[in-house]
């Protein structure tokens, strides 16, 4: 828990700082995430003048650049109502992330499960967990060790879409793949 708090602290500090710098950097990042509730991801700024923490070598050992391109920048797996099975539409996405994780042994992921607002809050919490577990299992089958994956459920509390119809609900029945440090 301490570690998570520290990381959050860094995010807050960094996100708070560059107000006089190029604001566009943050905006671009947010766009690729698609969500409004996710805090903006902090990546090393192009200016290169800021001190140390997230800066990596030219070889991109962490795969940070790769994660922003192609299918790897897709991070959400959507589910049917009351269901927790990963649909075939998302096979390619899951495979791509499994391949990335197998090739980048230092990276870890958090799988964040979500549910739509129908049903009870508490049951939806468990349903979000079950969805996160389903994605974890799918990645595990493809060679990703379980200890590199953490699952968490937000139940119905972090909707991507705030509407109250099927279009919104479909957006909210999902698992988000979040990489360490993001």
């Amino acid at each position, binding site marked *: *828990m301490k570690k*998570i*708090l520290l990381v*959050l602290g860094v995010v807050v500090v960094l996100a708070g700082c560059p107000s006089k710098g190029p604001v566009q950097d943050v905006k671009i990042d947010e766009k690729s995430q698609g969500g409004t509730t996710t805090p903006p991801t902090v990546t090393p700024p192009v200016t290169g003048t800021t001190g140390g923490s997230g800066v990596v070598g030219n070889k991109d050992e962490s795969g940070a650049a790769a994660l922003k391109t192609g299918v790897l920048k897709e991070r959400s797996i959507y589910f049917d109502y*009351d269901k927790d099975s990963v649909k075939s539409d998302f096979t390619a996405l899951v495979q791509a992330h499994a391949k990335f994780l197998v090739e980048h042994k230092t990276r870890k992921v958090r799988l964040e499960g979500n549910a739509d*607002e*129908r*049903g*009870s*809050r*508490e*049951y939806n*919490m*468990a*349903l979000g*967990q*079950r969805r996160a*577990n389903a994605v974890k299992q799918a990645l595990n089958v493809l060679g990703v060790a379980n200890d590199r994956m953490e*699952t*968490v*459920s*937000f139940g119905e*509390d*972090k909707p991507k879409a705030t509407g*109250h119809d099927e279009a919104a609900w479909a957006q909210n029945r999902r698992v988000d793949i979040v990489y360490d440090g993001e």
Partner: protein
Amino acid sequence: MKSHFAKWFYLGACLLMATVAQAQLVIDVTLSGGRQIPVAIVPFAGEVDAPQNITPVIGADLTGTGLFKLSPLAGIAILPTEPSAINFADWSARAVEALVIGTIAPMPDGRFEVRFRLFDVGKQSQVSSFVYTVGATQLRATAHKIADEIYEKLLNEHGIFSTKVAYVLKRGPRYELQVADADGFNPQTVLSSLEPIGGPKWSPDGSKLVYVSYESRKSTVIVQDLATGQRKVVSNFPGDNYAPSWSPDGKRIALALSKDSIAQIYTVPSTGGEATRITESKAIDVSPAFTPDGQSIIFVSDRSGGPQLYRIPAAGGTPQRLTFEGSYNLSPRMSPDGKLVAYVTRDDKQRLRIATYELATGQFNILTDGPLDDSPSFAPNGRTILYEAKGGGRGVLGSVSVDGRVKQRLSSQAGDVREPAWGPYGSSR
């Protein structure tokens, strides 16, 4: 822990201002049928000069239950404020059964002396009388006490007007855990966070709340002392920690943990410590609620396919399925007398509605129309169920009498209200 305290003081400072500015919960009452006791409440002598009117509060408390109706006072020649001025024949002719009179007088030290008397008009006799000496800020609470006394004398059961309710208010991006009077007034924010707060439940003695916090980006279960503001993490196992619920003796908390698999029911000491696993299934087991005798836990499991209510011995054992009607039954809460389970059932039009299930007979009774009701909670006298009505895109609270006859809506201008929990009698302080 230190940072918790710092945060608490900081919040306290912010909230003092916020609490004053915000609107309280606003109540709408709907009634259908049934006998109502006609009560005349005469404005107390000196009331207009007091900082808080008392009789309108008493009247609102009583009529809000649907069990009383206020008799009009127009045309009464002399409105009595002392027993000697009562003409019982007058009131009898108007079919008034109970008469309430009183006085409010300022005292030299700035406090007020509130005198109240209740009369049985038919018997022409005094049923109850009280004298309270209170500060100006206690006048509203005194009105609730008087309403409780009238309710108890006329219906021979405890009133709930002096109790508190806890709920979560979502105000913009912020979640606030609030405690308010049972009539929605006097809301106090006891915790404010940008991360969700969930499932508040009262300790049996009304001194603490247990709830789920996501302040560390992960669910943890916290017990907070309401008088001191002191908070203690009682469950922070790997995975999810949620759906907490007190044992009747206040010593344990039943909750759902996902540390070993998908959500299962465990209990932990209410001061924190080792978790004892209660259910053993490969399915989702969630939403535990102790029965008032402490012997069993009612919970939700989808081991049969969809979520249904089950009962298991509180120390673990073989669960027994309770609900068979409908494909989706969840969110159980026990009535104080242990006879009824309030729960949420999904009907064939996909509406989620509040219902009761009678443990002795297995009979169920659907009380609300939905479409997105959740989190039922019994009043401490068992007469009313408070719940979250999130249909219509806006989070409001609803309340319904267990006979389904009286319905109320409680909404807040400040934001979405959710996950209500009605406090026990001891929560009145």
